[in-house]
């Protein structure tokens, strides 16, 4: 097919892979459910799918890949990322691990996280988080409702888990500035996280007439 502007007839399957907004199949089991059967399955898949080779047998991280326990992403984002990762991480195809099995992996990684870790301990206060979100300048790049912009991703609702946020803001990548504990405490971050969780997922573009012009 030769592409001519204004005359193109694209023949072929358009793959909705997402480019930055990955869509995952709805997991049959809600990711993160830590039933004994789920964690056992998750442990097995974590090894058989090759996750442990880079992330360590206990998801503790190695020189090759970051720690995964506790999981740095929210359950649905965890599955979506496994399907369409960035950097050196290879994609995990459905043939290797179904959505259900990835949910089990998530449950396993969550189950082996230390009980006294900050992310397990902290209870966020969304009202205080809203104040901190503005005071600490999060809105400057991510927008007042965390909707994101060209320079920074959407964080409301967050794709990262609280554990992931606590880890990332201390040692971020790209243009995100580092927030040391001296500047923002873990409790502050838990409050901001609770505030970001209050936002619903964005509507689909198809539901907005102005985005279908």
């Amino acid at each position, binding site marked *: 097919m030769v*592409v001519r502007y204004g005359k193109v007839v694209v023949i072929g399957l358009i793959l909705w892979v997402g480019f930055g907004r990955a869509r995952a199949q709805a997991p049959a089991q809600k990711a993160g459910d830590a039933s004994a059967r789920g964690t056992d399955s998750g442990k097995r898949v974590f090894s058989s799918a090759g996750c442990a080779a880079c992330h360590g047998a206990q998801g503790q991280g190695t020189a090759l890949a970051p720690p995964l326990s506790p999981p740095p992403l929210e359950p649905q984002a965890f599955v979506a990322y496994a399907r369409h990762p960035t950097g050196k991480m290879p994609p995990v195809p459905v043939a290797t691990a179904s959505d259900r099995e990835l949910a089990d992996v998530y449950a396993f990684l969550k189950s082996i996280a230390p009980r006294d870790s900050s992310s397990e301990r902290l209870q966020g206060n969304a009202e205080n988080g809203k104040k901190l979100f503005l005071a600490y300048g999060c809105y400057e*790049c991510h*927008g007042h*409702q965390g909707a994101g912009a060209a320079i920074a991703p959407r964080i409301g609702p967050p794709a990262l888990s609280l554990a992931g946020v606590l880890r990332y803001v201390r040692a971020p990548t790209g243009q995100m500035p580092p927030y040391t504990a*001296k500047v923002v405490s873990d409790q502050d971050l838990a409050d901001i996280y609770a505030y970001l969780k209050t936002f619903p997922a964005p509507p689909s573009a198809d539901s907005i007439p*102005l985005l279908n012009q």
Partner: protein
Amino acid sequence: MGKSTKNSVNRRDFLRTAAAGTAALVVPPAAATATPESARTASSPPLLKAAVDGSLSNVEVLTVDRPGSDFMVDVLKSLNFEYVCANPGNSFRSLHESLINYGGNRAPEFITCCHEESAVGMGHGYAKIEGKPLLVCVHGTVGLQHASMAIYDAFCDRVPVYIILGNFPDAALRFGQVDWTHSAQDPAAMVRDYVKWDDNPVSLEAFAESAVRAYKIAATPPTMPVALVAGHALQEHPVPEGANLTVPKFTMPSPPAGDAAAVAEAARLLVAAENPVLVTDRVARTPAGLASMIELAETLQAAVIDRNGRMNFPTRHPLNMTEHASATVAASDVVAGFEVTDFWSVLNSVNGQVYPESHRVTKPGTKVISITANDLYLKSNYQDFQRYTAVDLAVAADGEATLPLLIEAVKRQMTAERQRAFAERGGKIAVAHQQVMEAQREAAASGWDCSPISTARLSMELWAQIQKEDWSLVSNCQFASRWPLRLWDFQKHYQYIGAEGGYGVGYGAPASVGAALANRKQGRLTVSIQNDGDLMFAPGILWTAAHHRIPLLIVMHNNRAYHQELMQIQVMANQHSRGITNASIGSVLVDPPIDYAKLAQSMGMHGEGPIANPTDLAPAIRRAMAVVKGGDPALVDVLTQPR
């Protein structure tokens, strides 16, 4: 022009003759006119008596009917300037007067500006629409100092602006303190590092030649601003008796096109490539450049990444992969850059926050071709030339002029087999393009109903109103997350004109008005998404738009801050671990809030807002558009998300 018949006496001769009687000349005008001639002759001081009875011949002639500035206007008219933008200044007062009276205030027509930076900024925006320079007059020293940032922006953006600056070169002819303060030995020195050429002619003959030469230099790629000094005596004093002044013939040089062998080699690399990528930035100087880029891309069925210095390639063209640039370049085996300002950044990635660390993003063995007129001319001091780019083939030539030759060379080298491969490649790119566009739409949905209003929502509310018009977006939309470029259907050359070039804030508002001035005669609907901090540099440009009835729809991206700097201060505060609650000191515009609607109204414009509810936006834009369609500018103030 006619010859002067008046006596030519310079001021120094007059003063020498009249010094003794100066005090006596101070007679109240009413008393002098009321006195009968006989009585006046009898009782007048000696000098006045001599003047009346004709015995004093060496007296200052107070009128000049053939000033040098009239001849300057003849020369400038030969260059077909439509407008002259200026803030008035006495170092070019004679030229100013000649333009509006002797020249009839037509071609060029005088556009009153409230700041020299605005005048040059208008010239910057105008040239990118019109494809030719605007004339700008600036006052000696202080006026040029005001203008200098805008000149630098135009220089970095490779845009021609034709600047005439006044001066009082002969100290003996300066009338007082102000003239001295507004004089310089070498007036253009302060901008010499960022104009392509300047001159300081000392005769009208030399002025004429330099004026024509300056235009040719400015408008020949790489196009840039030029500065020409017009001394005050050269303007104000009469054309010398018997002077044989002529306006030199003006012939525009053809732009420099690529060497045939180099173009053939570029074609060979592109035809042989499996995944060539065409990277554009400022290649489409004119509509012909845009058409050529489309033809080249379609001939090769190659992906295009537009850096958007100009409107180089349609945003919804199936071969446009701008929004997936890094991965597209990483997968390529030949990268061809067409007038790319910062080619190095296309080929490399920079990481790190304290110290930059870079790595090449292209695969080993990827061939790189550069076609740019920037290889023909560089200045030393200012570092706008960017990091050195290692390439395999460098064609030192104007991109737009070289494109037709390259297209022909590609067609000559294409085989049926390659054409089949091209077609297959094009189909894959088209599919990927659709995926990219879908991702943009989904991203735009995030925060759709937010208040303050998301920049995506602002952009699409505006697009809904203008898309059926003959529209032209004349503002840089980088600070609005580039939503128009990501979502709108840009097809025509005048629909986007790029950015400031030198990242100098204060460009946006005047360049938009200048572009609107060029669009006016075409009946286009000119639109700008105006950053609040930028407008506050010189808001008097709104009065210029209103006064000269320049139709322009301004939609404010009012994020209430110098937001880029706010983020930078936050980064520093974070790096220094000193807390970030003070980061807004010195970088936000909130207390008191600036009412841009009232600001516009105070300048005689339609203004409404601030609008914080997204559902109020469409009706406000419609009302403002009605004003603009009536021939006037209008402003809608919108409280927005930061980016």
